[in-house]
């Protein structure tokens, strides 16, 4: 109850080492204040309850010494808390010069991590994370132990916030600007990464892991990514990495998601929110990926993020091929 580890997850960030001590300090201040004030209150109630004989002569309405005391002591404590909190905050916020830089992109409702030096990218959708976990590969944001890391974040749609409780790190990511956060992991392991700024339907699903690995394993991980990223682009992979499966089902009996099911969609006529009808062809599919707000199918909200600039032409082509094939084997098309 009075230990940091009762209240807070284990801290594995060297830059935030000791910052939990302030929490424990204020916890003690709180407990002592509560005991003193509530104790005085209950004692007075017991002592001066109506009907009980007690000395009620000249109850004081002022007492300079007392009033100065209860002004000065909280002031001193609050100054201590302010300086302590500010010192730790500055230490936690300023990235060491040698930090490994990782680009973090928030998007409804998944995270993308780019390692600019290696030129590789990891996307952390729930489906991809599960797949990686099954394969025994590191999940989510993969970082080396004992190396300072600087996260440079931005968003492609609304504000999200990268929150890693075990690192005591939280920073909003915004469209059109960069924000930074920094840490130095002291232990290998898997830690939660949450989105902490409300961002809509799947806000609570925008979670992944931070996997801290040894420096050797980190190099292996980056090398494997390099190999994968040089192979031919596969539409199903683009679909998975784009986070499409979070909202769109692709099988015949997929339950309706946030977006319409894509099974057998190609070649169909769809009714739009404006009441117009549109034939689903390559142009409509492409437009709905880069600028989803343009033509929205009836019964769905304007919630899909725009993928303009997010896919290379190569990826777009592969994706289109994949989408056209969905349900085609059942003869659903035409």
């Amino acid at each position: 109850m009075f230990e940091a580890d009762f209240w807070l997850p284990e801290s594995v960030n060297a830059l935030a080492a000791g910052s939990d001590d302030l929490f424990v300090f204020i916890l003690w201040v709180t407990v002592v204040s509560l005991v003193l004030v509530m104790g005085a209150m209950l004692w007075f109630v017991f002592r001066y309850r109506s009907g009980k004989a007690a000395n009620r002569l000249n109850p004081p309405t002022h007492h300079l010494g007392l009033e100065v005391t209860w002004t000065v002591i909280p002031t001193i404590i609050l100054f201590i808390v302010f300086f302590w909190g500010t010192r730790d905050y500055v230490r936690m916020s300023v990235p060491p010069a040698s930090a490994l830089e990782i680009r973090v992109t928030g998007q409804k409702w998944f995270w993308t991590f780019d390692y600019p030096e290696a030129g590789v990218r990891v996307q952390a959708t729930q489906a991809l994370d599960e797949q990686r976990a099954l394969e025994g590969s590191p999940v989510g944001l993969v970082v080396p132990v004992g190396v300072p890391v600087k996260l440079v974040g931005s968003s492609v749609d609304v504000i999200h916030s990268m929150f890693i409780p075990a690192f005591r790190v939280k920073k909003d990511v915004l469209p059109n600007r960069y924000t930074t956060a920094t840490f130095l992991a002291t232990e290998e392991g898997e830690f939660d990464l949450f989105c902490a700024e409300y961002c809509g339907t799947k806000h609570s699903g925008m979670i992944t892991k931070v996997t801290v690995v040894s420096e050797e394993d980190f190099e292996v991980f980056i090398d494997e990514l390099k190999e994968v990223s040089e192979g031919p682009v596969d539409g199903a992979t683009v679909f998975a990495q784009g986070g499409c499966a979070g909202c769109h089902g692709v099988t015949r009996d997929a339950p309706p998601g946030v977006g319409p099911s894509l099974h057998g969609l190609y070649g169909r006529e769809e009714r739009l929110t404006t009441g117009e009808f549109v034939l689903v062809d390559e142009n409509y599919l492409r437009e709905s990926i880069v600028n989803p707000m343009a033509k929205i199918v009836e019964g769905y909200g304007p919630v899909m993020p725009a993928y303009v600039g997010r896919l290379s032409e190569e990826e777009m082509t592969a994706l289109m091929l994949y989408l056209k094939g969905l349900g085609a084997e059942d003869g659903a098309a035409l």
Partner: protein
Amino acid sequence: MSSLDSRSPEPSYLGASRGIRSWLFTVDHKRIGVMYLVATTIFMMFGGILAGVLRMELFTAAGDLVDPDAYNRMFTLHGSIMVFLVIIPAAPAVIGNFVLPLMLGARDVAFPRLNLASFHIYLAGAALLLLAMILGSFDTGWTFYTPYSTSTSGPVAWALTGVFILGFSSILTGLNFIVTIHKMRAPGMSWFRMPLLLWALYATSAVQLLATPVLAITVLLLVLERTIGVGIFDPALGGDPILFQHFFWFYSHPAVYIMILPAFGIVSEMVAVHAQRPIFGYKGIALSSLSIAIVGSLVWGHHMFTSGQSIYASVLFSFLTFFVAIPTAIKVFSWVATLYRGDIQITPPMMYVFTFLALFMIGGLTGVVLGALSLDVHLHDTYFVVAHFHYVMMGGAIIAYIGGLHHWWPKIFGRMYPKRLASITSVLVFVSFNMTFFPMFLVGSRGMPRRYYEYIATFESLNQIATVGALLLGTSLFLTLGYLIWGALYGPAASRNPWNGLSLEWRTESPPIEHNFHGQPTVSGGPYDYPVGPEIPSGDGIGVSA
């Protein structure tokens, strides 16, 4: 003002005229207060039921009761209703409207028609918020952060227009109270002979008058952004979403003091009257209300420590934040010191004073945790913050308001509720409140973000305790509502001064006559000048001569 000194029986304000029109178009501050009471109670029930559904959804880690969009719309409605339709108007517009002119010894507020207009504007704003709900509702959160609020679907513009209109109700009430306090104090009532509730309402009104226009401008800009794309806040149009957060909290942080300052005033009244002795540190309490209002207007950036605002701004806002804590601490100490050598009556209002002190202290001290920069980074936007502001807003503001209703209920309706049942229920409220919100501190500090429809399994047991607590809390509050209504309709008749209070509202009938007093009351002492010598305090009207 007429000084007819006839003592012939006059009908009370409740029976002075009949029919629905005589209520809806009344300019009597007491009837307006009662109408606000009915309206805010209905909205509080609605917001509370929404909270109940939210808590049931969170009973299990998986999302299984409602779908995520419905969940998001419900927490948005819960927040918007509780903030804009319940807590902001409750204490000033219900208790303030009813009690302020009576305490001043005045016939009404300075501008009775404007007062009625405030109520009608409130209804119009509430109607627009409800219209937005019927039109499919909105899922922006009560904070309306851009660019989410400008890009999501739903009738957000209607809801924002409702908030815009509600602001005017708040501004006009504040204006009315300030003028009334300046111009209509009874002969002999100097500033430092005013009951402390009036000081608190004065400070509240000043904040309402100065901060609410900023909210109005902000939501108007947001409506323009959504409808014609002006691009003040949307980065895609060259705007700045952080600017919105500054604008929003420039109002919404002071709004916290609009909610809590009247509560401080109510507690000051209750603690002195039910301890039957002069309040400790009258001037300290009176002036700390003003200093909280001033300093509280300069701390809005502490909502934005992780937003990407400059580190220097964060340090400054953190520093200023701690200066609000000092006058607040002084008030708490003064209330407790008032119990020393008192003649403490264990009445339902006093039970709510005890409840308030315990819950508000926890709320305030956890605010110190959040004011510290390094800790806020971890705790911001987690359930720790949810717990903190429910301890302050509900454990503080709403609990004091409910206590105030128990204090003035016999004055408002002329009948007494069952007191023993009320005292027992206050204990139930206290226990179930802690059961609901205390686990949230823990689940938050362990990392659970707020506004989560689903959560990881580790957090489940604490959430289950909170959900059970919330259902008990809801039951206790419905019980409270039930016996209060029963008391108002069928309770035993209350005397004009059931608690032996000394401020002027206790010198007229219960319920008061339409014009409040038979003559112009005068004041020759302080509002808490209980005898402190050897004689035993008893009887009505001690310390103030008519």
